[in-house]
């Protein structure tokens, strides 16, 4: 694409012309080519859109830019020429980055979504992956934790295509990498390859889609430009769980839990009274310690203490430029994200150098090199979230540098203080990446080029671990209730983990045009090798908790290691041909050989074909030209592969075909010995997982190319999915062999719409994408057979569910003909409330309407049902400690007169994977002002949410009680109907102390719709005009506000449906202020 300045200019006849090129929204355009018509010199604009070129005084400038219509402007004696490019040019003129090349959107046969750098720029996102949400049709982006350093999102292209790792392949400048190892500011474009014809060039690793990231490069003859972009962002947690923080209420609810089971009260009235008195005068002093009541007798709201909003900072500086032969882009970024919880932050430093230089006419060599290092803080977030619910309001977090412990006499001295998990862990956690490619391009003859690349990528993680344990105080007495661990028992640990990948990539390209025949061909070879290892050690018995080098501890605790290695060798080729740009065809073929399979099964072939027809170039379409433009019909077929099985990376899974013996230890007479046992069955016939893709697409522009529409239908069948065989228990603990057995089909429709226009001085654009995906397991272990059979004269119910279906996730199962990970639960009983039939006999369908024993009539009915020979499961005895008022009843789906046993579990037709995802964006600009918005959402998904402490009726020693449950649970005591706690309409079951078996078995009460829509980004900016910037000697200056996750709409009652049902480190809501300027 880049035009090199060639030829020798005749200096004395020239004048210098300068100017700035902007798009229709007033934003400067960089990389616009400016050429003198008929001349040989050209240049391109820098990051602020300015250029300077020597031309003859009466020259005409030709200004061209990808995706825009060329403009020709006569100088007419001026030496400043500012140009606004016509932004209404159609999408169809874009050039799209595809696998091993670029293609004009017009001629593209595959399904490729492109994401412009603009959609990522100036957002305070910490990771590129999260910025992609809502940006492209069929691309689902889900962040599962907001913890700095681990906050990358998973990206699913067109649903989940396999039961294994379904992550899309990420390719950065032609090399497979990871999304967190690229600076968002360095990105020029992102292409998502979704169908077989676009992705099959990546063969076996492309079945789940490919994301191509291209970084910015310098341009030839470009003056060095320095650009700075800074963001300062206020971060807040997106959603946090809520617990009862009033300890009096907490104690009363606990006592309600013991009362309901007929057990002695957990808390004595005297303890509750103590808090009531203290609460009446929070600043008074009642405690012997002399501390104020609100400290000595606390009512702690833990979520107030563990979260704190902070300021995130990102500073990026880059230098871009080029001479005739050499161009470069150098950038660096510092990202400081303190996180929204103490001691959880991460600080990241990133550097990039993209450099290329021409040697002679034929050879270009260069490098793309990236290095980063990230320091993560060590707070034990996993423990914190594990213990978040296991905390009571009766502990004061921290006072005067001391940590609080149990106060009430009834509490265990063990009570958790969450601040421990944030403050105690110490040490280092550093993740570094080094990724360097050197490349060479040779022009062999006209149209024939050879490109070779060698890449070395290493990613390593260094960790040390120690802790400074704290004493826990009873702030009422001032005494230590739970002493810190002693130095002799403390451990020091250190580990080093390294992933190293070598890639060697060679491509030969040929392009030619013979008359109306355009022919392109590509032949390639790739090999890579990946090796991972870890080494870790720990010792016990420290000198002092603050002395943390592992050498100082005195007792050996453990030394451990692990490793895996994998490699692949591939050959691939592509031929594309079109006739007159009207009839297009493309073939791809890739041959991959992987070290993972048995000797005879290492090789797989992955072909694809794409066909396209530009209807609008046909004469018979001319009549429609005023209404629709650029009509293209395309279709593709192809096969893609996958060699990753579940649990990758994991050493065992790197040899899925082989059987192994694993180490187990024993001892005789006091002496330790090693032992071996068969740890895994093998399967030497194991082969590739194959995904057959079919797709048809229609693209057209309308309203004079202001609107662009793209519709795709795809159908993807993944077969031979690598899954562990489902084994009988009798085979023991030996891991199941991996077999090519399952199949899944994903089919769906994607719709892309864009609209760009101008009303007066306001230009605006609207874009939307929508994807519906239907996912089915088409083959697993056979059909589900269940029902009643005559067995030796007795009518017996049988099912083969355990044989044909496997349990996955939370109360989810896979079964042929069903959704992937479909929920499988009991149904709440639904009666009509009539209780008895006309003949006075108990009516099995006449029970409580919503399946909870709420009234005395309900209870009586349950008793009569039992008398009549029906039974309830899992508990069939009626009574206070058993099945009682405020307990759930379940439907008897199989008709065995047992309500709610295993045989009453059934599929719900729902899963936690959305059936549709969508996104839309809006942009306006007026003079220097601009506004952008990006929304994204997911629809038709459910979560099973029955987490103790958050969404069920168990109250447990040392645990908190969720506000939601506290506010809306059943209570009734038949002995005292006027009890003030009575709430017979409560939604949650009656509170039960320290566990229960009835209401928390898998049932549909806990299935919640989790559809959501989020305002991902809102940006309002102002670009200062030239007069000001010139006075300040800066090239451009823009200030803006950028907000992330500002709004969310959902019916899901948990904290944040994006991260899932459970409590996890929340994602961040951000209010960012940014500044861009360049010299």
């Amino acid at each position, binding site marked *: 694409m880049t035009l090199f300045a060639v030829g020798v200019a005749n200096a004395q006849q020239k004048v210098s012309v300068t100017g700035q090129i902007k798009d229709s929204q007033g934003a400067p355009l960089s990389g616009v080519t400016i050429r003198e018509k008929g001349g040989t010199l050209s240049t391109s604009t820098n990051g602020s859109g300015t250029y300077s070129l020597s031309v003859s005084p009466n020259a005409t400038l030709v200004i061209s830019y990808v995706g825009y219509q060329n403009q020709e402007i006569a100088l007419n004696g001026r030496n400043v020429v500012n140009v606004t490019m016509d932004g209404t040019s159609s999408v169809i003129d874009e050039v799209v980055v595809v696998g091993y090349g670029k293609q004009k959107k017009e001629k593209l046969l595959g399904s490729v979504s492109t994401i412009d750098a603009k959609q990522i720029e100036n957002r305070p996102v910490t990771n590129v992956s999260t910025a992609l949400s809502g940006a492209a049709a069929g691309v689902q982006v889900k962040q599962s934790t907001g913890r700095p350093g681990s906050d990358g999102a998973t990206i699913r292209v067109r649903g989940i295509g396999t039961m294994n790792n379904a992550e899309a392949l990420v390719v950065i400048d032609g090399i497979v990498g990871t999304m967190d190892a690229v600076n968002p500011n360095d990105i020029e474009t992102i292409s998502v390859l979704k169908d077989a014809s676009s992705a099959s060039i990546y063969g076996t690793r492309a079945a789940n889609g490919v994301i191509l990231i291209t970084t910015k490069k310098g341009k030839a003859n470009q003056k060095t430009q320095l650009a700075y972009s800074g963001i300062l962002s206020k971060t807040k947690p997106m959603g946090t769980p809520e617990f009862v923080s009033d300890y009096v209420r907490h104690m009363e609810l606990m006592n309600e839990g013991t009362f309901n089971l007929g*057990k002695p009260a*957990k808390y*004595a009235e005297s303890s509750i009274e103590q808090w009531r008195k203290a609460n009446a005068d929070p600043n008074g002093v009642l405690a*012997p310690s002399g501390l104020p009541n609100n400290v000595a007798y606390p009512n702690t709201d833990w979520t107030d203490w563990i979260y704190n909003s902070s300021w995130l900072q990102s500073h990026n500086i880059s230098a871009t430029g080029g001479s005739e032969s050499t161009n470069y882009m150098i950038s660096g970024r510092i990202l400081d994200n303190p996180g929204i919880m103490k001691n959880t932050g991460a600080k990241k430093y990133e550097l990039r150098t993209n450099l290329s230089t021409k040697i002679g006419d034929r050879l270009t060599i260069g490098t793309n090199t990236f290095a980063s290092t990230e320091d993560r803080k060590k707070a034990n977030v996993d423990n914190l979230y594990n213990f978040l619910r296991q905390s009571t309001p009766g502990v004061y977090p921290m006072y005067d540098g001391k940590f609080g412990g149990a106060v009430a*006499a009834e509490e*265990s*001295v063990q009570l958790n203080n969450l601040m421990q998990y944030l403050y105690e862990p110490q040490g280092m956690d550093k993740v570094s990446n080094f990724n360097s490619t050197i490349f060479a391009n040779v022009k*062999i003859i006209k149209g024939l080029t*050879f490109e070779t690349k060698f890449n070395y990528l290493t990613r390593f993680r260094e960790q040390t671990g120690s802790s400074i344990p704290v004493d826990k105080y009873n702030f009422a007495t001032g005494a230590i209730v739970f*002493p810190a661990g002693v130095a002799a*028992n403390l451990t020091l640990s250190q580990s080093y983990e390294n992933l190293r990948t070598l890639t060697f990539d*060679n491509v*030969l390209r040929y392009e030619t045009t013979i008359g109306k025949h355009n022919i392109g061909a590509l032949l390639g*070879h790739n*090999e890579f090798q990946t090796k991972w290892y870890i080494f870790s050690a720990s010792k016990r018995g420290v000198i002092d908790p603050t002395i943390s080098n592992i050498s100082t501890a005195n007792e050996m605790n453990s030394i451990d290691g*692990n490793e*895996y290695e994998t*490699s692949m060798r591939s050959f691939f080729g592509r031929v594309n041909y079109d006739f007159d740009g009207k009839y297009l065809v493309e073939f791809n073929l890739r041959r991959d*050989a*992987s*070290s993972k399979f048995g000797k005879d099964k290492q090789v797989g072939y992955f072909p694809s074909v794409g066909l396209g027809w530009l209807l609008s170039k046909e004469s018979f379409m001319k009549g429609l030209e005023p209404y629709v433009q650029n009509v293209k019909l395309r279709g593709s077929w192809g096969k893609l592969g996958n060699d990753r099985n579940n649990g990758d990376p994991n*050493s*065992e899974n*790197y*040899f899925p075909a*082989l059987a*192994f*013996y*694993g180490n187990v*230890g*024993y*001892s*005789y*007479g*006091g*002496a*330790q010995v090693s*032992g*071996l*046992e*068969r*740890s895994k*069955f093998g399967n030497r016939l194991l082969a590739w997982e194959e995904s057959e893709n079919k797709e048809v697409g229609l693209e057209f522009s309308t309203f004079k190319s202001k609107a662009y529409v793209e519709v795709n239908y795809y159908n993807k069948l993944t077969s031979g999915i690598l899954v562990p065989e489902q*084994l*009988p*228990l*009798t*085979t*023991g*603990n*030996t891991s*199941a*062999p991996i077999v090519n057995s399952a199949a899944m089909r994903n089919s769906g429709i994607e719709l892309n719409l864009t609209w760009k226009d101008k009303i007066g001085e306001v230009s605006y654009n609207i874009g939307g994408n929508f994807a519906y995906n239907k996912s089915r397991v088409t083959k697993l272990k056979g059909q589900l057979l269940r029902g009643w059979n005559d067995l030796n004269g007795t009518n017996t119910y049988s099912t083969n569910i*355990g*044989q044909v279906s496997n349990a996955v996730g939370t109360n989810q199962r896979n079964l042929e003909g069903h959704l992937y990970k479909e929920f499988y639960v009991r149904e709440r009983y639904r009666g009509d409330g009539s209780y008895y039939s006309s003949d006075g006999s108990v009516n099995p369908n006449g029970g409580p309407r919503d399946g909870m024993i709420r009234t005395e009539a309900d209870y009586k009915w349950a008793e009569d049902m039992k008398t009549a020979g029906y039974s309830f499961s*899992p508990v069939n005895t009626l009574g206070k*400690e058993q099945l009682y008022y405020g307990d759930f009843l379940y439907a008897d789906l199989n008709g065995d007169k047992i309500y709610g046993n*295993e045989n009453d579990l059934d599929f719900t037709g729902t899963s936690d994977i959305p059936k549709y995802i969508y996104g839309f964006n809006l942009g306006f600009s007026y003079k220097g002002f601009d506004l952008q918005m990006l929304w994204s959402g997911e629809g038709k998904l459910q979560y099973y949410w029955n987490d103790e402490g958050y969404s069920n009726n168990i109250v447990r020693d040392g645990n908190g009680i969720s506000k939601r449950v506290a506010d809306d649970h059943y209570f009734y005591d038949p002995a005292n109907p006027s009890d003030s706690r009575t709430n017979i309409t409560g939604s949650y079951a009656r509170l039960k102390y320290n*566990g229960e*078996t009835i209401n928390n078995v898998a049932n549909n009460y806990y299935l919640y719709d989790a559809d959501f829509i989020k305002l991902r980004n809102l940006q309002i900016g102002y670009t200062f005009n030239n007069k000001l910037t010139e006075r300040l000697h800066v090239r451009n200056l823009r200030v803006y506000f950028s907000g992330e996750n500002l709004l969310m709409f959902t019916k899901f009652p948990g904290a944040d449906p994006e991260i899932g049902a459970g409590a996890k480190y929340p994602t961040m809501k951000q209010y960012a202020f940014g500044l861009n300027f360049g010299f």
Partner: protein
Amino acid sequence: MLAIVLGTMGSCKKDLLDITSNTQVPEDKMWTTDNYTDLGVNGVYQALRFGYATGGTNNRELYQYDRLSNTLMPRGGDPLLNATANTSSGIFVDVWKELYESVHRANDAIYGISNISPSTPEKKARLLAEVKFLRAFYYYRLNQLYKGVPLYDAPINYNEATKPRNTEKEVWDFIIKDLSDCIGETNLPTKFPAGSKEFGRITKSAAYALRGKVYMYLQDWDKAIADFQAVKDAGHQLFPDYKTLFTAVNEKSDEMIFSIQNIALDNYGSTMQFYFGSRSAFGSNWDSYLVSPDFVDLYENKDGSKFNWDDIIPGYNDMAPAKREIYFIRDNVQQVAQANNKPAKYTDLVDPKRGLDFGLYLQNGNEARLKKAFENRDPRLSANVILPYSTFVGMNGTSDQTFTSRWPHIEQLNNVFDLRTDIESQYFYLPRKFVYEGGKPPIPSRVAGDIDYPVIRYADVLLLWAEALNEKGLTGPAIDKVNEVRARAKVGLLNSSAATTVSDKADLTSRIRNERRREFFGEGVIYFDELRWKSWKDQVFGGNAGNKQPWGAIVDKYTYLGDQLYTWPIPELERQRNTSLTQNTGW
């Protein structure tokens, strides 16, 4: 040109795709050397450690089965005790799977040793005998619980676990055959001398003992007696002291016939410290298993007469259990609670809703009165159980600290240390057996105890021997065997007084059973006995059944599901995956 480039690249990277694991042993190497042969056999032994868990009890270690008897009590509910067990309950699934894993390891070893191993014939013969014993032991456990399980006697591939069930008798016969092979193997030692470095490996005496146990199931008393005699002839005898038998120094004594090996190393040691120990013991433990008051009451007085609460506190037996709590309360409870800023500890006790009669409370003599109940008892009681107001040397930092079990637990003040449990709001008898004392016992963690786990010891053989003799009507010789065990325990011998006089065969049966309950506390023996005797329902669910505090007040009630519990169900899942498996009656 491309071809040249690729050719060069190809040649320098010829082995690119040849990668093998560096962390595991591929199947085709196994059994091919003498070393692999040893390692494979060790793997069969290691299956003895199934159930071992470091993060919390999973109820599957052999000693943890005692929670299902009326000696230990689980801290929370248990599906087998609260009538919620069903054919999909985890315990049935996991135990089945683990025992079959153990069987397959043995089958694999038998195949590997016989067909692949290059070891010497003598060594192979001995190892085969050891592995056959282990296979017999694993099938023994399967047949004890599930009765009549499918027999696999050779390695299977993953798709070959399709056999139907054999009968209970066929399984016993299979076990007897393996054990008889073992007994007939000349290369297998009969017994290791006390202290031997080979302790833990299988001997002929272990095979005799186990075969004798199998004959007990078959009620073939003569054959059982003959096998027990063979164990005695091998030189096994009781260790002189009951209490110190269960320590690492004495674990290689002549009493031990077959023990699972433990050493003081994580993943190689015992877990009793963790699940039996209290918070005050080294490691800060969980009290996962508590001691049943019925079991405590079962310990006789030192002279062999029955213990009776009424002898200590007149009227005790007739009181409502909850009211008896008054006798367990510490001296000066009000003053102590006040002095330690925990007035609620006292006010809760006098709360009228609690219904305690403080007229019965002795301000300064309550503890002394209660302690009398435990003073003159079978010494095994205080060896096995932490009794009220008895002391326990636990941990304070890394130093020794003497704690006293008191109710209610108040606080550590003025160097008076109350034993701290994980359940301070309730009071229990706690296990003492197998719990390490002191602040720095010779173990690295609470899940790495070094005391070997006694699976079969000579006292077990003696009492089974007595049982077999009694069944044959040989009361006198049977009493002699029981008295060997009682003499070692230092409790009044049978027929030494009026109270210990055996009246008839049935009386002796009952005395032998109680002797076994008292003797094998925490050793994973008694639950299986109760099932074999068909006495489980009466023992565990009779009367006021539940998880009880020392005064008999129930914390969690037990509910009897039905007689089907005497035979564990074939896991539902397994019947779906192997449709030829039939279910046990009642499930």
